[in-house]
């Protein structure tokens, strides 16, 4: 059951990182000169989203 719950939780994180990458690639294509700054913001955003998925992973293993 725990593994199924983790799978459900990851759906959200997957959509989140997908949206972040979508926005970042779109913006980079429009304005290649701000690539460096955008990459930083993209990594920051993904880190926030990814933390949620990882908390789910660890809670699944421990509980």
């Amino acid at each position, binding site marked *: 059951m725990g593994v199924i719950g983790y799978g459900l939780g990851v759906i959200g994180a997957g959509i989140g990182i997908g949206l972040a990458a979508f926005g970042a690639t779109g913006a980079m294509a429009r304005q290649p000169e701000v690539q*460096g*700054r955008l990459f*930083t913001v993209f*990594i*920051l955003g993904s*880190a*926030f989203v*990814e*933390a949620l998925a*990882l*908390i789910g*992973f*660890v809670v699944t*293993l*421990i509980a």
Partner: protein
Amino acid sequence: MDALSKLPEEMDALINSFMSQAIVGDTTVGLTQYIFWMCVAIALLFVVIFAFKKKQAKSLVPQGFFVNGVEYVIEFARDDMCKSILGDTWKKHFPFIASLFFFILFNDIVGIIPGCHPGTGTMGVTAALALVSFVYFIAVGVKRMGPLGYIKSLAPEGVSFPMNALVWVIELFSTFLRLVTLAVRLFCNMFAGHVVMGAFAILASLFFEPLLQSFAVSAVPGAAVSIFWVVILIVIYMVEILVAAIQAYVFTLLSAVYIQLVESE
């Protein structure tokens, strides 16, 4: 199929081995395996930094792979994390930011080596790191605006009275949440990464075991599958090297962003 039936207990043993175990003393007063490897990482960091200083002093122009490599990483920390986020005040905070980055980076890299544990793989170390960063940005805020000024600055200006108090409570909550998320993010990344690597290593060994015990034709397909697990293990290992660097980067970057938030008020 009996290879898979052994997997749950092997996984339990693996996760148990990731819990803090004392190698000197006990878990209240003593040295756990994580703290031991953290000390190794610190020793390694000192060796690299002092060797760098010694080699750098030899000539004005940086020469060789080692000196240039270390300088590149330091300049990356300076330009990408300090200058681009903190702006004009970067010089004041660069020592703190750089020491955070190098400490976490060396801990993560040491943890990647098979047989070693990352210092950041236990909640205690990451919570301490997050606490240091938390106290640092609050101290910067208090120094700039005074204790009362900092507490007031949590609520945004230009909001009328009842909403003001509500926003202040939410902001206070989110400030303390930063402490938790900084610690949990780093810990979970290291822990989860090592569990996944361990799981594939266990799978590979479980599928290969029948062939070692007795050479039979029926054991050959299992051994062939284990090659597939080893390939996946190598891919995950590469990803983990990337994650080690990215998590050091993310932790430091977030600390810099929090410092910038109080500096710009």
